[in-house]
């Protein structure tokens, strides 16, 4: 009986690892999509209402997913670093660079600056989306399969 319980535990664990990796992929995709959405909304705001960044973040933070919301709150309202841990070093550097430079230029230059970063973020969002579409479901299946194989071997 205990042996079956352990096997069941192994199967569940390996499957949940797959789900976890899939969840990271979803979060990364949502994060980059939010980043692009943020750039677009900010450009529109700068061109019309010209809210200061902190005011903009306070007003519109709820329209973003949790991970991105936490990061913009952390950076623009609390002046801390990025919190989202599933970014690669290169991505983190690019986003930090964007956030740090934001707000230091007059209107037209600022919009141009955001647009150039937005193109980079669109690429990131696209590759995160491709990654998810390619491997999101596969990784769950593979991890379940790996669990099942381990179980069979142990049996």
């Amino acid at each position: 009986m205990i042996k079956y319980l352990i096997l069941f535990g192994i199967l569940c664990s390996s499957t949940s690892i797959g789900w976890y990796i899939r969840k990271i992929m979803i979060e990364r995709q949502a994060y980059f999509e939010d980043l692009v959405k943020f750039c677009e909304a900010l450009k529109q705001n700068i061109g019309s209402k010209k809210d200061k960044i902190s005011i903009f973040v306070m007003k519109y933070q709820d329209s973003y997913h949790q991970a991105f919301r936490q990061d913009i709150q952390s950076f623009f309202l609390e002046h801390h670093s990025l919190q989202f841990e599933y970014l690669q070093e290169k991505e983190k550097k690019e986003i930090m660079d964007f956030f740090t430079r934001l707000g230091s230029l007059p209107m037209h230059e600022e919009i141009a600056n955001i647009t150039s970063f937005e193109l980079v973020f669109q690429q990131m969002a696209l590759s995160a989306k491709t990654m998810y579409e390619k491997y999101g479901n596969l990784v769950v299946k593979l991890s379940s399969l790996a669990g099942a194989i381990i179980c069979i071997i142990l049996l």
Partner: protein
Amino acid sequence: MFEKIFPANYIMALSKVNLSMLNEIRLRVEQPIVIMAKGESCYLGPHGATLDKNDALVVGKKELEDIVLRSADYSMYAINDQLIRGYLSLEGGVRMGICGEVVTEQGSIKTVKNITSVNIRIPHCVKNCSLPVYPVLMKNGCVENTLILSSPGCGKTTLLRDLAMQLGQRQPFVNLLICDERCEITGMSEGNSILHIGSNCDIIANCSKKYAFENGIRSMKPDVIMTDEINLDDDIEAIKNALTSGVKVIATIHAKDIYDLKKKEKFQDIVKDKMFSRYVVLSNRNGVGTCEGVYNENLACIYV
């Protein structure tokens, strides 16, 4: 507010200064910080106010740029219109005057870069400071068209603000429109007026007087319009238009006294056309806000 814009060592130094007395903080690149309290200037050292230049805190170029960026709340695009006019309006009616290299493109000013000097002016509400002159500015229960004049830093805006307060208290149904170009009168910040003004005030902030007068008269039907620091031909034109529309105007202007005002070519119409019925002259002879006299439209002194 200082916590938001200054580095920690400045905050520490300012914590040893009586902030309620502070009028000005002057920052110049690679120069000691100068503060003015109660009309007296001295340096700002790590331990507070000092007369020893060698003990004063010196401002670095990067430090000054950071102060301006922080004052703009990391949103230079939002304040560029102010920046090209040489100032930033901060919280609580605090005004930051800015000097630097002006960037032009096809003849128009685009922005200011390489900022070299900053002058932070801190407003103070002096409750009831207008009471001595208030009765002289009234006629048959209506306020007269009034021009407050003095050199910079002699309390024109403070007097104007208190006049708004007194008018609000005494004549609560008089509609008072405040054209606050630099947000100094009302301390307008993110839609909130921080300094005490009357309850019957409508505020148009952060725009030219021409715009504020034209649109304000049309849309708000004011009885009295108040504005600060008239300077441009457009400002005088806007006031003339308001006066012919039957709206009373209370304004301020930079001029040492009546004779100084008469000497300035572009302001000669003001006196010649008798646009104002009362001129209040201020100085800092016996402290900021000393009333040197009130004059009528014929420039006869009617109150000392």
